[in-house]
């Protein structure tokens, strides 16, 4: 006899182990290597202690005041120091942080902000296209108004993009509320729906005192129908 008796049990263990490892390997990649696990929560340290919670939340400054190209161009601009100085020439000038902004302004050296939301180079994304379709800022960036330091709230993976492209209605809203961090703001917000998004009949029905609230899908569905929104699922829509 070359082998001891216990070897008999090794073969089934190896076979089962191999089958299990194949499944486990797929699971490991699908779960732990996914952007949902790896990228969500990415919160790099910024050169200046800028608080979105204060500016966008407490002060209620519109997103577009600083990121002013977001509804006009593919790229959402990171504001130059000049934008900060619009206010901070007179506001909080004694703060240590503002002194850094001041230094950047007077030395004519941009602040080296760290990019948080990165897409791969082979994916083309256009901010203005999504804004004009009615995708609110918070759909992708989360509750920026509650973040002291900005972090990535959504996976920004291809599958995540496709989920919305396949069923966009739940993420569409009227233009008036595009930068609202919470949508619907309140029940009453549905009574000031834009004519762009709703047909005249809808507005009339609402003003006639119709009590029933529309669901997000219904609102989005009407916006999609009126603006003829039909998101592409072609490879070439994003991979040009």
């Amino acid at each position, binding site marked *: 006899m*070359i082998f001891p008796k216990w070897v008999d049990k090794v073969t089934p263990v190896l076979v089962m182990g191999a089958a299990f490892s194949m499944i486990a390997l797929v699971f490991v990649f*699908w779960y732990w290597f996914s952007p949902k696990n790896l990228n969500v929560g990415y919160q790099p340290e910024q050169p200046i202690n800028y608080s979105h919670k204060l500016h966008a939340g407490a002060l209620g400054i519109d997103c577009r005041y600083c990121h002013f190209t977001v509804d006009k161009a593919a790229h959402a601009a990171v504001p130059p120091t000049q934008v900060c100085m619009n206010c901070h020439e007179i506001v909080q000038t004694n703060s240590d942080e503002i002194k850094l902004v001041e230094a950047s302004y007077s030395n004519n050296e941009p602040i080296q902000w760290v990019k948080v939301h990165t897409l791969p180079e082979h994916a083309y994304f256009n901010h203005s296209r999504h804004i004009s379709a009615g995708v609110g800022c918070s759909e992708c960036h989360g509750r920026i108004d509650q973040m002291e330091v900005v972090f990535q709230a959504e*996976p920004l993976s*291809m*599958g995540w993009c*496709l989920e919305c492209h396949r069923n966009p209605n739940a993420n569409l809203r009227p233009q008036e509320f595009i930068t609202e961090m919470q949508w619907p703001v309140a029940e009453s917000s549905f009574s000031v729906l834009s004519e762009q998004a709703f047909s005249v009949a809808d507005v009339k029905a609402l003003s006639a005192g119709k009590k029933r609230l529309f669901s997000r899908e219904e609102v989005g569905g009407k916006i999609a129908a009126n603006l003829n929104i039909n998101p592409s699922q072609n490879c070439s829509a994003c991979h040009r």
Partner: protein
Amino acid sequence: MSQDTSDSVALPRLVSGNPSFSDIARDVTAPTSGTPPSWWVIAFVAAMSLLMLYGVSVVWLVWEGVGVWGVSHPVAWGYGIINLVWWVGIGHAGTLISAVLFLCRQRWRTSINRFAEAMTLFAVVCALQFPALHTGRPWVDYFMIPVPNQMLLWPNFRSPLLWDLFAFNTYLLVSLLFWYVGLVPDLAVMRDRAKKGISKILYGVFALGWRGSARHWINYERAYLILAGIATPLVLSVHSVVSFDFAVSQLPGWHTTIFPPYFVAGAIFSGFALVVTLLIIAREVYGFKQFVTLYHIDTMNKFLLATGCMVGYAYSIEFFMAWYSGNEFERFAFVNRAFGPYAWAYWIMFCCNVFVPQLFWIKKLRRNIAVAFVISILINIGMWFERFVIIVTSLHRDFLPANWGYYIPTWVDITMYLGTFGLFFTMFLTFLRFLPMIAISEIMGIMDKANPHHASYKTDENATKQNV
């Protein structure tokens, strides 16, 4: 008389001479023991050199991208798919010999089935190189497999190219299992004959504790039969699916309903041809003339004749259908095939595959080793050109004359093709060195003395008791 059936029927003796069981085991395992002969070392070094050439070509391909191949507009499918279809076609002989002939009780298969199955496996491995590498980015080849992923990417199940993936991998897996199950009793022989500790252990591991008890044999026979049943439809399905790559498209010259049977016949044709080539070499250098007799070569050549006539029929009926369809594009595709810029390739194909095998109508030539060897090589050249003709001539003059072009392979195309021979022969020579190339237990089973009704059974009773 009633007892002695095998003498009354004029069956050819499948094993010449009258070797004892221990002679068979000794002779078949002889190439695996002692120092390898010098021709083996030379062949192995040559195969490894080709394999290195392959490695260099692959590195260059991956480094530079598929642009280093000759494929371009309008011939976007070139050597890659030609070689894929050619290799996987060769791989068909193994299953046909081992499964279909087994179910048909063709006992002459026992001398060649192990050999042909090994050839099948290695040919399929060579074939799989091309779909894996043609993407240019082999690290994203998992895109081809339906696994859950964050991109929500899912293969296109309407594409025959995906069916290929499943067909090939099923085929590889089933062939591997079939080959391995057949090997188990022989691995036990190797284990028992092994002298060194390490080979004892290695053969022992793979022999799965085979002792040759009656219970083992019952389970073994049952498993082998089931696997033969599973493998049999694969003989037809794999190359049918390969033919769908072309037949499902709408290109004149490809969009033909005859493709599946035509491809299957061609695959068996080329597979048998390579088995004959390799078998003739092996039987000469290893002196296995008692196991692989002229009767075996003769029978194999009959298969070549039959399948050669089938592909000849397919070539002709394609022309007839092109004419009969009344479709001018279909007609053009076929006239262009035979008389256009690639006529040289078409006529190489036609001569090698249709005219040359007709020599096998003559029994003397069927039993002539030299003739069979040369013809088998010509057939493999012809079958390579068949794929070349189908793929290149259908593409090079497409619907827009402004697009017409002439496909020329680059050096990377050629070295990758030659390189797969390195891969194939490296694996094959390793197989010859480490595993019995003839199924020892099956050969013993077809001997007269293994037949309880045969006169010689009693006299050799002691030999049958030997552990096989």
